[in-house]
Structure formats: structure tokens, C-alpha cells
């Protein structure tokens, strides 16, 4: 933490210095107690961050103080005055004007006066005049504060209130970070605000990063040789960023916006940030298996296997402070519904797009538990009870809407529905009959919800004959949410919805009589509500693949034969319904588009296919520009991108002037390529020269040895003559044989 980049550190330091002055050292000037705790009118209706800003305004440091401030920031002891203040969390949240308030204060004073003389107590208040659940206690000496933290941390006041105590100095640091990267202080350019956290996105080249988890040439699989390495994707040879041994033992992930790298260790999870990839925060959770970060990057979820009944094995952490804000007990059957060797159902906790709510599906209770994440309480203290619910999914952007479905039961038809949160109003529902299974998928822009519905064909349902239909909900500008039904036939093997457009690609294969095997067809449908009567667009034959994947940019898709020896990759342009390129990468097990949608990676994961692993990078039109073989590759992940900064108008402006930018970028690429070639040239020349040097060196040494030996040996002439005779006679005989 002490190596925090200066830029951010100073700006936040100002604010903290302000509060420091007001709360701490100015105590003598003002009569402290009444001003801070009793003057309710003053502090009402502001949040704690506002307090910081307000206090900063009130107490503007003059020049002399600013210099002093800088001096302070450079010195290791940031602020001695804070040492005597502790922050006590989880105190009862009651009305400060009520009768209980006095009683509470007496109790609290009693508890905390044990550690030393209390100078001041300050209760934080909510906007609606309720106590916020934490308070500041200022002691006369820092020793008492430390004592209080040591002893009273975890003090159980009553059933529902267990104190958490922190020294103010620690919190200052944490808050310093929060000021820097949270949304609270609006600035013109989010990029600048994020500063060092979004360093990679602010590089001029705008290249993307990816990380691979791999093992060296070692045979033993005890994780002793596991490397996590990070690379720049430059469109030609990837550029190395960093590699660390044992950086992550059990897999890793990126947060959704790419700000943090999450690593998993037996002792817990950790997140890493900045250009130096220093550890940002750690979350000690023994035996953690699965980790997730909320889309807004405010919370971290860790999950271990339950060791006992009622083991709180799922924990939600505040990302910044690393405090556990909520725990759940989840059975391992829920985490691994298909058995321990099958992939886990993860993330268990689903977040709304802005982290405001999160939901957990409970199949046993037939309900969704939706929590408000600011107070970690059930929404309206009630679960959302939906009989027989099977699955639900949040809309990924735009608004807090969740989609869910349940099958038929007791003459009631099956249903897919959209529910707004927090109102719980059903925005749209669609009844379905004869449903075998259903899958819900949103497009990343929140425009469409795609439900793949598998219907029974025969009424008896005893035959496993099914057909597939798609129900597409389109959430546009209008209040109406039109639903289109697309009948896709009996044998759908793969499907994918355009992430940025309005097409759906469906792969179906049908057994044919004349040709042995299957005839596969790739069909395109429109999901545009205006074409609801005739959604069919086009079909393509001769494209076989087990998976379809659209570029996040839309327009292009790749049909991939995953985990097959052929390893076909077919790149398709969906505007003209034509194959751009056919390529192959033998035996690849996964494909991943980069966040720009311009590059694709196909790779062989050692866990899925125990063979020699490799990954290949392709452009969207199917040119392989890089292929790398690694003995053991366990994971490949692109780093996500922060949300766009420019408005739509500005984006359009850029699109208009694309020709201008193109030239600039082409020149840059050329220059980069030349540099790359130069570097390679130098590297090769150095390697070659080194080798030749070694070679000459040994030659000299051996020559010396030879001359010294020759001096010693002088009686071998006869034997050499003897040798030569034999060779001659042998040659003669050989000549005879050939004749």
C-alpha cells in the first residue's frame, strides 16, 4: 500500500487531511463534542464520502499546510493524529432522536472507556436520520485505541451485533483507494479517474492482454511448476508482460471490466492490479475453490466446499476492505449438481448489472432470494417465491430485470417471464406448452433475451423425440416487449445469438439416407420484431461444427469443431452469409473472442484433452498470426475492457473518420513490425554470436589438448599404417561385390 501511485495518493490525501484536521487536531480549537455528535442538523442528509468532501471544503489547507501535507505523504507515518481514533462497525441502527439513543451511548461509552479515556464519540447517521451502524471513538492516546482494537474487535454486544473495530489509520488507507476508483466522485474522464488501475486500457496502442496458466516441462502435477503469464496481443507476435511461478495454484480469472486479476490459492483468493501487478487485496478463505467478482467490481464472492453442516462456505467480501459482508451455507450438491468431477454451477450468486442487487436461486425452496447489496438484506425482507422455478438470469446491462422460467405443473403451463426489481412487477411473460427444457441467454447489451425451448413432439412424452424453438424477447425503447417464436426443427446441435445485432445462427444436422452420416445446415434467423412473421433469413450447407460463436462486435461468427481431431474453424461473414476462411487447429478444446471482437483464440486445454497443448490466435477473417505450443496449458483468458468512455455521438464521429485513423494505425503497425523485426534480428544475432563464441572457445581448448597429446604420443605410426591397409583391402572387396 505504501507504494501507491503518487497521483492518486495526493488527491485523496487532501480529503483525508481535511477530516483529520477536523476530527483530530482541531479538537482544542472547537469544543469538540457538541459540534460533531450533537449537531444533527449539520451532518444530516450526507453520506460519508460527502462528509469527506464537505470537510475538505470547510477546511481548505493553505499553502503552508499543503507543503506540510506533501511532506506527510512522503514520510512513512501518514498521520499520527489518527492513531487514537477507532472505527466501530455493526452498532445497532436506531433512531438517534429516540429514547434508546441515550441508553445506547451510555452502554457504548461503558464498553469503550475500559481501554482509556474517551475524548469524543461520533455516530454516523443515515439520510433518513437513522444511525448508519458505525461510529468513531477518539481516545486520548493511541495505545488505548490499539488496545480497544485488539480486545474489543469481535465483541458480541447482543445476538445481531458483533463489533468490528479498525484503527482510523487503516481505514484512511482503504478509503484513499475508494476515493480513487469508485464512482462517487464524478470526473470528466473515467479513464483518468481510474488512473493506474486502468493503465492497460489507456495505453496508446489499445492492445488487449491475455493470461495463460501453464506448466513447464515438469512431469509431476503437484502444482510445483505452475506459471501464470501475461501477454499483450499486438496483432503479430504477442509481447511478454510478466510471468510468475506459483502465482495462482487453482486457476484464475479476470474481473468483468478487467481491472483486477483474481488468483486462487489454498489459503484464499487475492486480486492484483496496477502495471506492476502488485497485490491489491486478499481474501483469506481456507480451501477456496471458486471465485467470482461482481460486474461492478465492488464485491468478491468466494466459495469452498462445506466441511460441516451449516459451514458458511460461500462468502461475499467487500472488494476494497476485504471484510466479509455476507455469508451463506451452500451444500456441495448445489455447487456441483452433476457430481464432483463435473463443472461447478458457478457463479452461484448472480449480480444485477450495477451490483445493486444479487440473487440466489433456491431450487429446494422454489424461490429466488434477492438481496440489496448496500445493506446485504433481503429485498423487502421477502424471498421471491416462484413455484417450481428452474433458473433465472439478470439482464446484463440497462436495468434491473431478471428473467426466469418454470416448467408445466398441475395443468399450469410453463412460463418464461421478466421481472423488474425492486418493484417485482412482471414486465412480460410467455406461456409455453410441452416444454422439456429451457435455456436463458441474454445478449451482452441487454437488448435480447434468448430462450432455447425444447418441446416434446409426441404427446405421450415417452419417446424422447424433441424439437427446438427459440423465444426471443426484445427489450427496446418501447414499453412493449415483443416476443418472437422461431421454430428451428428437430436436431439443433448448436446455436448462438449475435451479440451486437439481430441475428441468430442455428446449426442443425439431420441424418440423410444417401450419404452415410449427417447432413448439417447452418440457418440464420432474424430476431427483429418487425420480421416476426417470417424470421428465416438464409441457410448454408457444408458447414459442420459443434459450436457457434459470434464475435462480440457482431457480423462475424466462427463455426468451430471443438474437441475433434479435425479441429475445423470456419470463419463466416453473416452479412453476406458466406464463408470467409476455413482453417484448422487440431484438437482444440476452447475458443474465446477477445473483447474487441477482432481476434479469436483457439486453444487446447490439458484438463480436457491430455495431449500436447497449444494456442493459436486468429483474426476475425481467419488468418492465423500466431501459434504457440506449450506442454501443459490449463487456462487462457482475455482481459476484459472497461466500459466505453465516449458517448455514442463521439463514437459515430470516429466511425465517420475511420479512413483517417486507419492510415495512422497502419503506419504505426508498420513501424511496430519493423521494430519487432529489428529486435528479432538483434536477438538472433546475439544468440548466434554467443553460440559461435562458445564453439570457437572449445575448439581452441581442444586444439590445445590435441597438441599436448601429440607431443606425448609418438609411437602410434605403425598402428595407423595397419589401419590404412585394412581400409584399402575392404574397399577392393566392396568394388568386386558391386560388379
Amino acid at each position: 500500500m505504501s507504494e501507491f501511485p503518487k497521483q492518486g495518493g495526493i488527491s485523496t490525501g487532501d480529503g483525508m487531511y481535511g477530516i483529520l484536521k477536523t476530527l483530530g487536531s482541531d479538537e482544542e480549537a472547537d469544543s469538540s463534542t457538541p459540534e460533531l455528535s450533537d449537531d444533527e442538523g449539520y451532518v444530516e442528509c450526507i453520506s460519508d464520502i460527502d462528509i469527506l468532501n464537505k470537510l475538505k471544503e470547510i477546511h481548505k489547507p493553505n499553502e503552508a499546510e499543503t507543503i506540510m501535507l506533501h511532506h506527510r505523504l512522503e514520510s512513512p507515518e501518514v498521520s499520527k493524529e489518527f492513531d487514537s481514533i477507532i472505527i466501530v462497525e455493526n452498532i445497532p441502527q436506531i433512531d438517534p432522536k429516540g429514547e434508546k439513543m441515550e441508553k445506547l451511548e451510555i452502554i457504548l461509552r461503558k464498553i469503550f472507556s475500559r481501554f482509556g479515556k474517551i475524548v469524543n464519540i461520533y455516530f454516523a447517521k443515515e439520510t433518513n436520520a437513522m444511525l448508519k451502524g458505525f461510529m468513531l471513538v477518539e481516545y486520548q492516546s493511541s495505545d488505548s485505541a490499539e488496545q480497544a482494537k485488539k480486545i474489543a474487535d469481535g465483541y458480541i454486544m447482543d445476538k445481531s451485533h458483533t463489533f468490528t473495530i479498525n484503527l482510523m489509520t487503516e481505514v484512511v488507507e482503504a478509503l484513499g483507494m475508494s476515493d480513487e476508483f469508485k464512482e462517487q466522485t464524478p470526473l470528466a474522464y473515467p479513464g483518468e479517474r481510474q488512473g493506474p488501475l486502468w493503465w492497460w486500457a489507456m495505453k496508446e496502442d489499445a492492445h488487449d492482454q491475455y493470461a495463460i496458466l501453464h506448466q513447464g516441462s515438469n512431469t509431476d502435477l503437484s502444482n510445483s511448476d505452475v506459471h501464470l503469464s501475461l501477454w499483450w496481443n499486438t496483432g503479430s507476435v504477442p509481447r511478454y508482460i510478466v510471468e510468475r511461478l506459483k502465482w495462482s495454484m487453482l486457476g484464475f480469472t479476470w474481473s468483468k471490466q478487467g481491472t483486477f486479476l483474481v488468483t486462487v490459492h489454498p489459503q484464499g483468493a487475492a486480486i492484483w492490479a496496477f502495471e506492476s501487478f502488485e497485490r491489491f487485496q486478499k481474501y483469506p478463505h481456507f480451501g477456496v475453490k471458486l471465485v467470482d467478482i461482481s460486474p461492478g467490481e465492488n464485491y468478491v464472492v468466494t466459495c469452498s466446499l462445506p466441511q460441516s453442516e451449516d459451514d458458511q462456505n460461500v462468502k461475499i467480501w467487500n472488494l476494497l476492505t476485504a471484510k466479509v459482508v455476507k455469508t451463506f451455507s451452500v451444500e456441495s450438491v448445489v455447487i456441483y449438481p452433476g457430481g464432483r468431477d463435473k463443472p461447478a454451477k458457478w457463479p452461484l450468486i448472480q449480480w444485477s448489472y450495477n451490483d445493486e442487487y444479487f440473487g440466489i436461486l433456491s431450487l429446494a425452496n422454489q424461490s429466488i432470494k434477492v438481496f440489496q447489496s448496500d445493506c446485504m438484506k433481503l429485498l423487502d425482507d421477502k424471498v421471491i417465491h416462484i413455484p417450481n422455478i428452474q433458473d433465472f438470469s439478470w439482464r446484463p446491462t440497462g436495468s434491473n430485470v431478471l428473467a426466469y422460467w418454470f416448467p408445466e405443473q398441475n395443468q399450469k403451463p410453463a412460463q418464461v417471464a421478466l421481472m423488474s426489481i425492486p418493484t417485482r412487477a412482471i414486465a412480460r411473460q410467455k406461456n409455453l406448452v410441452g416444454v422439456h427444457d429451457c435455456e436463458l441467454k441474454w445478449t451482452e447489451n441487454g437488448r435480447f433475451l434468448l430462450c432455447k425451448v425444447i418441446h416434446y413432439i409426441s404427446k405421450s412424452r415417452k419417446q424422447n423425440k424433441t424439437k427446438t424453438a427459440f423465444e426471443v424477447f426484445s427489450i427496446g425503447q418501447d414499453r412493449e416487449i415483443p416476443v418472437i417464436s422461431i421454430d428451428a426443427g428437430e436436431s439443433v446441435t448448436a446455436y448462438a445469438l449475435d451479440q451486437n445485432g439481430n441475428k441468430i445462427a442455428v446449426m442443425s444436422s439431420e441424418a440423410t439416407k444417401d450419404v452415410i452420416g449427417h447432413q448439417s445446415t447452418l440457418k440464420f434467423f432474424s430476431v427483429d420484431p418487425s420480421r416476426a412473421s417470417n424470421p428465416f433469413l438464409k441457410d448454408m450447407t457444408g458447414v459442420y461444427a459443434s459450436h457457434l460463436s459470434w464475435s462480440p462486435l457482431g457480423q462475424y461468427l466462427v463455426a468451430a469443431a471443438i474437441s475433434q481431431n479435425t479441429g475445423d474453424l470456419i470463419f463466416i461473414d453473416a452479412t453476406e452469409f458466406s464463408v470467409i476462411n476455413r482453417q484448422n487447429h487440431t484438437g482444440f478444446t476452447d475458443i474465446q473472442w477477445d473483447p474487441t471482437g477482432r481476434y479469436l483464440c483457439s486453444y487446447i486445454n490439458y484438463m480436457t484433452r491430455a495431449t500436447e497443448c497449444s494456442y493459436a490466435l486468429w483474426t476475425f477473417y481467419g488468418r492465423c498470426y500466431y501459434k504457440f505450443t506449450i506442454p501443459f496449458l490449463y487456462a487462457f483468458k482475455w482481459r476484459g475492457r472497461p466500459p466505453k468512455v465516449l458517448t455514442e455521438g463521439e463514437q459515430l464521429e470516429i466511425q465517420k473518420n475511420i479512413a483517417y485513423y486507419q492510415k495512422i494505425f497502419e503506419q504505426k503497425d508498420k513501424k511496430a513490425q519493423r521494430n519487432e523485426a529489428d529486435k528479432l534480428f538483434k536477438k538472433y544475432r546475439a544468440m548466434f554470436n554467443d553460440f559461435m563464441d562458445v564453439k570457437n572457445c572449445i575448439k581452441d581448448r581442444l586444439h590445445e589438448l590435441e597438441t599436448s597429446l601429440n607431443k606425448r604420443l609418438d609411437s602410434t605410426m605403425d598402428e595407423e599404417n595397419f589401419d590404412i591397409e585394412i581400409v584399402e583391402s575392404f574397399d577392393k572387396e566392396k568394388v568386386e561385390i558391386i560388379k
Partner: protein
Amino acid sequence: MALIRALMLLSHEGPISQIKYNRDGDLLFSVSKTPPAMVWRTDTGMRLGTYEFGEKSAISCLDINKDTTRLVTGSAGNMIRLWDCETGACLQTVTTQTSVRTCEFSSDGQIIFYTTDAQRKISPELAILTLKQFEGGAFDYIAQTHITDSKVTAATWGPFDQHIITGHENGSLRFYQADNSAKRVQVLRNEQIHKDTVTDLKMTSDKLFCLSASKDFTAKLSTSDRLENIKTFNTDRPVNAAAISSLRNHVIIGGGQEAMWVTQTHSHTGKFEAKIFHVIYEQEIGRVKGHFGPINSLAFQPDGRGFSSGGEDGVIRMHQFPEIYYDFEFDRFKFDR
């Protein structure tokens, strides 16, 4: 992708244990776990003849002297045999205490060394003997020593036959030199080059480097006079054999999963290809498929224009490089030329 033609030599009934070209490169000698030893013409792939053993024990090694008059073989039947290359007659035998692992002629063909495996309580042995009276006379032991700490698994003569370079079960490479007066060999140098058993050891034709292959998934190039490791070739499989070209800066590396796992895997995933690496840049530049089991032995043609591989599947594949091989440039800056 270039096509490389291979002659498949199919007479051996057991897994190939070693193959070697003679110095002229016109003949290829091979031994397998089932006798007899065989000799082949390299231009047509025709089998010229066999060397009949009269016993069934596995043959583990062979060597040909420089002028292709004598062949020496070592077998698991505790026997070193000296053969007349041309007639196929067994001229002389030496009985060892345990099964023979390696044997090799010195460059003048007058001296051989052999190493043996450990058996029961008998520790492995390294011996050097002279063939001066090989026509019927007895062998003369120059030196004979038991090596107690780690078994010798591969060995070859060092530069000017001054010492023997040995590769050991623990992954070390060593120099052993004969001490004539004491009739013993002594360790001159001991370097821990590999992490696992050394499986193959070869000198370059100019005797400047030695190439060692190991079960630790690597092959390494070390200097022949000081055993300094200078190049490492990483693979994804235990390496059983390696060979180095005299023509270009290429090494060829072969191996594969252990024989006991072979039946469980597809030949595609079994990693039985021979891989060609560039010596200087340590990068893989090509691979040759074909075997259905691990490769046990590799040999470059002395002129560097082809190579042969012998596999656990009992097949010897004799390859001639296509024209494109000679045009191939790994570094487009052509330092290598």
C-alpha cells in the same frame, strides 16, 4: 508441410534398442530386444545380413569401428560379442557379470569400453579393454571399476578418447578416465545436468559438444571438455533418443510415453513423433510422424542428409530429407549460413 519419404525396415521382431550408421553412411546396423542383429543398405533399404546369436537374450547396444570391419554388441545375456562385419562370424566374446548397457569402440578401433547394469547385489561396472589380440587372443582389461552410486545409462567416448562421458540414472553427466597404473577408472568431473535418467548420449561429429537426452523431457547440449550446459531443448515427453546433424545446426529428438502407457493412448496423442530442433535458437522447426510406439534410438546419416529412427514398435524408419530441407531457413537473416 513437406513430404519426407521413409523406408520402413520391418525384419526385427522386438523393440529396437539401438541403430547406428557406419562412418561411410552406406550401411545401417541395428539391434533389438530379440536377436539377431542386422545390417541394412541405406540406399535401397535392403537387408544385407544378420548376426546370429544362438541365444534369446535382448541385445542392448552395438558399435561399428571406423573402417566397418568389426561390430561389437552387448546383450542382456551378460555377453559382449565381437563380430566380423563382412562374414557375420562371431570372433570373440567377453562374459560380464551382469547385463551390458552400453559399449563403444574408440576412434582407432583398438579399445572398447562397456558398462553394465546393477543386478541383485552386483553394482554396475565400467570397463575399458583393448582388442590388440582380438583374433583369438584374450582381451586385456585396461581398467575395470564398479560404480556404486548411480547406474550408467548412456556413455560415449570423449574428445581424443581421453575420457568416457557417462550419463547416469540420477541425471548427472560425468567424465571417467582410465588410470592405467591402478587399472581403475576415476571420476574427473561430475555435473548434474538433468533432473532424471539420461537415456542417450552422443558426440557431435566435430567432438565439440555432447548431446544428452533425458526422461526429464529435455535434451541438452553441453561442451565436451567441461560439461557446461549451453543449450536446452524442451519437449512434452520423456526423451529416449537424440541425434545431431553434421550438416546443419539441427538436432533430432525422439521419445514418447513410457511403453507401459502406450496401449492406453491413441498414437496421435502418444507423442511418438521425432522432433527437429534448431541448435542455436532452441526452437522446434519440424516433426516427423510415423511410429506407433516411443522412439528408442535415432541416428543421423554421417553426411547429415537423412536420419533413421528405431521404435518400440520394432520398426526402423529410414528417412532422406527432401530438397526443401536444405533451403529451409529458421532465421530469415541467415546467420546460420
